[in-house]
């Protein structure tokens, strides 16, 4: 038993170290002076600790603007889609109307369509509306998602009908019931979906790469990939850029990880 325990722990620890090593090196190299990560043998710690890469990013390379774009877009998409998705989810969970199940099943089966299929016409559509290279180009395709509707619906179904009936007898309008009863009760799943959406928008790459054509509109991943093509020989600068991109998302995740992980479990077990 003792040896089994030792083996288990060492296995888990080695896996953990391998998981974290790239992040460790990223952080360490981001504090190195120019050229100090391009040496043999590689340095694991900066011999001179410097913030010059971060200064460069913030003073010369406009990273504040990308950070703002990413933050604003992720927040906007999250707030709007939570609102849209939860209304539709409530309708699917608690109302009877003609063709409800057929419609719901149709939506579910459409989840298999990869988003890339929509990108060409979506680009043309938004271009003709003059929305390419604006924040709307990112917000519009994220207004509502089938996955989001599905996730919230699974949760709202378990809210007892009697609560809704009671509210109706008390004279609440349908929208009041949704706003003052359903939304507070569904809060845990809404938080979960909010984290999913926020992170998904923050990390998204292909669509922002297509839809945002002007440097000042770039989100962090797009800006970073562009920077990479110009600064292939500057690992220290690129590592600082990666830290700025990753750090906010890690903070959000660590703060709300409980919701995130139960969300994955629910989405998979019930799905």
């Amino acid at each position, binding site marked *: 038993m003792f040896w089994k325990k030792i083996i*288990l*722990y060492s296995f888990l620890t080695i896996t953990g170290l391998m998981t974290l090593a790239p*992040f460790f*090196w990223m952080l360490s190299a981001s504090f190195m002076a120019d050229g100090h990560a391009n040496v043999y043998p590689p340095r694991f710690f900066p011999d001179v600790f410097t913030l010059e890469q971060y200064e460069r990013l913030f003073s010369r390379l406009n990273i504040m603007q990308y950070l703002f774009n990413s933050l604003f877009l992720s927040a906007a998409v999250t707030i709007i889609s939570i609102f849209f998705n939860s209304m539709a989810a409530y309708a699917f969970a608690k*109302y009877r109307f003609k063709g409800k199940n057929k419609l719901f099943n149709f939506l579910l089966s459409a989840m298999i369509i990869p988003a890339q299929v929509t990108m060409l016409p*979506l680009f043309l559509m938004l271009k003709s509306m003059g929305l390419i290279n604006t924040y709307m180009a990112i917000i519009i395709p994220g207004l509502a998602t089938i996955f989001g509707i599905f996730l919230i619906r699974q949760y709202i179904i378990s809210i007892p009908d009697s609560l809704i009936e009671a509210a109706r007898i008390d004279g609440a309008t349908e929208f009041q019931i*949704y706003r003052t009863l359903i939304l507070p009760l569904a809060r845990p799943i809404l938080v979960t979906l909010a984290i999913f959406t926020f*992170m998904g928008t923050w990390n998204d790459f292909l669509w922002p790469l297509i839809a945002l054509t002007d440097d000042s509109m770039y989100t962090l991943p797009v800006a970073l990939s562009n920077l990479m093509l110009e600064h292939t020989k500057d690992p220290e600068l690129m590592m600082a850029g990666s830290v700025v991109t990753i750090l906010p998302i890690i903070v959000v995740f660590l703060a709300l990880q409980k919701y995130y992980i139960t969300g994955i479990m629910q989405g998979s*077990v019930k799905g």
Partner: protein
Amino acid sequence: MNGKKISHKRYKPFASAAYLFLTPALGSILVFFFIPVIAAFAMSFTDFDIYSLGDWTKARFIGIKNYINLFEDPLFWISLKNTFYYVLAATPISIAVSLGAAILLNSKLIKLKGIFRLTYFIPVITTLVAVAIVWRFIYHPRFGILNYLLEIFGINGVDWLGDPNWAMPAIILMAVWKNFGYNMIIFIAGLQNIPEYLYEASVIEGANGWQQFKSITIPMLAPTTFFISIITMIGFFQLFAEPYVMTQGGPLNKTLSIVQYMYHEGFRWWNMGYSASIAFVLFFIIFAGTLIQFKIQKTREL
């Protein structure tokens, strides 16, 4: 009969509310998802190109010519082959690693489960573009830490991203590192749903660990594994950011993926009709892949 009528009547006033609740979400999904899907399908039968960009009427219907051209396009076949290589290798490897990690973390001997679970999960949530850039430097043939660590163990390093034979395995290794934590969480949920008495009964009958794994864990996890293989496969077929950032599809097009080829044709060269046909082939492959998995699952159940 009577009861049904009453319940129908009872719900009728609220149906209009239901439609109001549905309209914002379903309206935007219709306009910005379903209509583009149909439009893309239509586009794939036209020669929509850079000249049509300003004036859509310039695009002409050309039947299945795009699909025929695709068939004769060596670059398309290369991207198809690369993507299949990636999916067929990365899916089983990442599932195996996820399952291994889940089983270890589910052991009763282990404390601090939460910390390990959290650690393994961090790559999942981090930005793909950023970690691809980090790995690009880790894979550096001269200054990268991977080759340095291999040398310590007496193994000669390779030019991971520069060698046509190693570039795809390097991308696969990174994909496994990035994704195993996600499926691990789902596997842990699946493992916790296996009733304890099955293991207790098997111990009484003298089963060892491997036998338990083979005849209890694996069969009981089958629905979870099925779900995981589908979502993992669908995700991996959409490979884009890794080759875009790490190799630009090279060396010698050995990491060019379907989505990357679609992006190049559609948004670099503005051959949007042709690009739409590539997107639909991708859709068809994902669809077929899912059907095959469902078929396999059904025969297993019989």
